[in-house]
């Protein structure tokens, strides 16, 4: 799937956003992982999205595709987060599952 890097970076940004107090509390969920965990997870996923893109397309096109997909994933997350905060967090999980699913196939 050509978009898996973007899907992972969406989840990465969601994780980083929820690690911030003002966005994390907007969900109203009590059982959110601690901020430090979310932050580390976010950066790790962001690194993973880069690795996936480079592994798929090679260094030159991979980095280009990674940055491009990241730059689309982040505005999409911000739009979702401002419209339906909970849905944006759920979609982060969904996008990870999608990326995993396409990696297996």
């Amino acid at each position: 799937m050509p978009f898996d890097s973007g899907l992972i970076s969406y989840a990465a940004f969601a994780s980083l956003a929820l690690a911030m107090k003002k966005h994390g509390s907007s969900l109203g969920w009590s059982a959110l992982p601690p901020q430090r965990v979310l932050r580390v997870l976010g950066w790790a996923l962001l690194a993973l999205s880069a690795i996936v893109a480079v592994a798929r397309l090679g260094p030159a096109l991979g980095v280009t595709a990674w940055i491009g997909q990241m730059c689309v994933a982040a505005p999409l997350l911000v739009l979702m987060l401002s419209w339906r905060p909970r849905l944006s967090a759920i979609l982060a999980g969904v996008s990870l599952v999608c990326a995993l699913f396409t990696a297996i196939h």
Partner: protein
Amino acid sequence: MAWIHAWLGLLAGWILFAMFLTGTASYFRPEITRWMQPELRSTHASAEQAAQAAINHLQATSPGDQQWFIYLPDDRTGVTRVFARAKPNPAKPAPRRPELKLDPVTGQPLTARDTKGGEHFYRFHFQLQLPHPWGRWLAGVCAIFMLAAIISGVITHKRIFADFFTLRWRKGQRSWLDAHNASAVLALPFHAMITYTGLITLVAMYMPWPAQANFKRFEDFTAAAYGAPAEGKASGQAAPLRPVGPMIQAAERAWGGDPPRTIVIRHPNDAAATVTVLRTTASRLNARPDSITFSGVTGQQLSKSPPPGPAISTAGVMLGLHLGHFADPALRWICFLLGLTGAAMVGTGQVLWVVKRRKANAPPFFGLRLVERLNIGAIACLPAGMAAFLLANRLIPAGLPGRANLEVSAMFWVWFGLAALSLLRPARRAWIETLGLAAVAFATIPVVNALTTDRGLVASLVAADGLFVSFDLAMLAIAALCGFGALKAARQPEPRSFAPARQARAATPKPTSVRENADAV
């Protein structure tokens, strides 16, 4: 620094918005052209087959030419294009012949409605429909302003990381600032890249002095940079041209399987004939093709383009990044969305300039009204003009002479006409109505397409015609986007009343509380 950002952005903003929007459309240049010539259907042919078919056609029509250019079909263009240059004749210069489209399989000329197609948006985004040097210069000045605005914007943005994911709706000026920040910061690598590489693409025109200082003629510079073109004289002795198939195969072997994109044949049917095969640039970042030149008579390889130096490689990659030819369909849609983010950044910045300076209890001063009107003309009326360009393609009779220019005129008459008409309405109504009209115009395109061609949405779905299906769906999506803008403008509180903030505050708790209740259940 903040005032530099505000004024640089404002002054170049209207043109930049048009450059961003038409440039974004240009990511789909061949696709738009194909949509605008619905008579043509792509047929698949191998590079060798298409090249030989085109040569057979040229041999039959103009065997004594000086040069033949053959642009081979690919997945995106679907047709072969040929251009033949006649021998220079000092007594009677031959008229410039138009480019022809050929069937890739048979090599027969294809007839379709005359149109500029996607090329129009592409040309407009850096020539701005102005006479030759001026459009490119104006585009360059705006791009420099853009670059300066990007840098000053990053410097003046105090809360880049604190507000990284922040977007607050229905809060007046606050919302516009959030939207401007989000669209700018989150896609910053793209904005900086596209602005800088756009400037670099035309750098030899904007800054010719380094080349002038080191080379007597500009041709000497290009020869030193890109390798001298094979420019032998014709011998005057007739000799048959060999089939190009083996030459293409040899070139593909040398390129690790990459197909050729263009074939240039000099002095066909002469003993000094050469065949230059240029490599495709799809799926590579560097947009400068390398080439191999063969003798047209013996089929032997004569020369190949020298490996480019680091500077030329860098320039080629920058050009490639800007053009996006490397992108597969998935990545091209990403580029398209990034381009829209750029247009959103410029548009929200323009609106923010007005919203920030509007006083609740004072009538707007002249400059404010002027900027607001220009904003309406640039941001809301241009999409309607672009829709008119596409609609005109379907509505102007296919056989009408000069129809290609009529399509272009339709875009500008609708764009500027609508902008002029919107002056008759109060600013807020003008926003709503022009955006609404743009939405209607885009939504009409699939309907008109279905009525005037046999390639409507249903027929295309049945035929599994991905291009026409995507095009109709994209038009509907853009219509929805314009309609959303119109709705949002209609729901905005009256700008000149005292209570925008209070109204917004009163309005927000309601939907959220409903949602929270729903979520709690």
